[in-house]
């Protein structure tokens, strides 16, 4: 882990911590996408409604997945994941 700042240059409103890396080899984007989909499916949203959220730039998290992985990827997850 890389140290970003020393005690000396710390100010109240600066982030002074270290990088906490994700797990190597784990696809965090996929897990986030699955979490979005399953949580909304458990609220009985339809695939169409969830896909609309992924397509909408207003919803930054799902839209990031959509932009990075594409619609086919999201559709595949929507069809595959079951509550």
């Amino acid at each position, binding site marked *: 882990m890389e140290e970003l700042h020393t005690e000396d240059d710390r100010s109240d409103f600066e982030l002074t911590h270290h990088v906490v890396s994700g797990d190597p080899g784990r696809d965090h984007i996929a897990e986030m996408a699955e979490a979005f989909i399953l*949580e909304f499916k458990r609220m*009985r949203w339809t695939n169409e409604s969830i896909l609309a959220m992924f397509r909408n730039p207003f919803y930054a998290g799902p839209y990031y997945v959509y932009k990075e992985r594409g619609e086919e990827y999201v559709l595949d997850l929507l069809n595959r994941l079951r509550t």
Partner: protein
Amino acid sequence: MPKVYNWQLGREMDYPYEGKRSKRQFAAVFNINRCIACQTCTMACKSTWTYSKGQEAMWWNNVETKPYGGYPQHWDIKALELLGEQPGWDTNQADTEKPYGVYQGETLFEAAKTRATESGQQALGYLPTEKEWRSPNFYEDTAYSSIASQQGKMADGTVLPEHKAWFFYLQRICNHCTYPACLAACPRGAIYKRPEDGVVLIDQSQCRGYRKCVEQCPYKKPMFNPETRISEKCIACYPRLEGTEALTAGEPMVTRCISACVGKIRLQGWIDDPESPVYYLVRVAKVALPLYPQFGTEPNVYYIPPRWAPRGYLRQMFGPGVDHAIDAYAHPDHELLGILQLFGATQWLVYSYTVKDDEVIGYGRKGHEVVRVPIEDPVIVRPEKHLNVT
């Protein structure tokens, strides 16, 4: 020092008092996967209990962004540093009574026997500075790090609103621990655990404001009131729990933070009653886990861990049950799916439940129905002109 049994550690441990379990133990489960950090819980608590002079910096309920946020700042990093690196759990010894196995390291109570920084210290701890109490939502929504990125210190540092980095929200109230460090720490004996429900309270007439509870509670949930010069803490909304609030007609209700939760991420119950849905989540499905169980206080607020965060970080925070909990949550059985629908479904305290094919029914203290929720909710789509999009 007496020995008490801590089921989260799977073994006996040192504690300054004899282990006397309450008749029932207050408990709650928070589903981190659903929290959006709207802070409605925080404000519900604030506007109910801590709106007076001297309580300005006092937030009995707070929601912090992990890994960087904390109230008080760095509380968990500092507690972990005090405890030092520990060997963790022997999971090979896990069974029904020891769901996570047997903890091989030291608790904060045990570490204090050899590493106490002053005489009389029962659990390793520290007193946060005023600056650390000042900003309860420090680093809210902070992934790693925009500043480092701007300074060229981190090539892949990212900024909101879009980023690749992980974070999650941690909802925190007093854990109403079975073996509270605050209670152990108090030289006045002013802190007690109610035998009827396990709620931990500070007797305001006995407290003299020594702040030993603030120092030794690893979760930093007792707080000092500079106006009254005595300490205060979350009271688990005990008038609601007792059903003595004016509007409840004698029926117990869940706490303000739990009933106000917009995302319906919280469920209150009893950890030691096999009929309680909370018991099922924690002891049967093992989908909800204690916060930093290695501290040794047997905390009674449990968390469904976030499925997207690094497992090593989560294991440090919630113990060795993380992988099973996430797997159970991602692939729930029918009973678990039913209980998940009870989260936020009613303000009444659910004592027991029945999961049927298509609905789940919650029952109150007298065994009467207090809530009925479909497991398969009907889908009602609003007309396009009313869609909540921009």
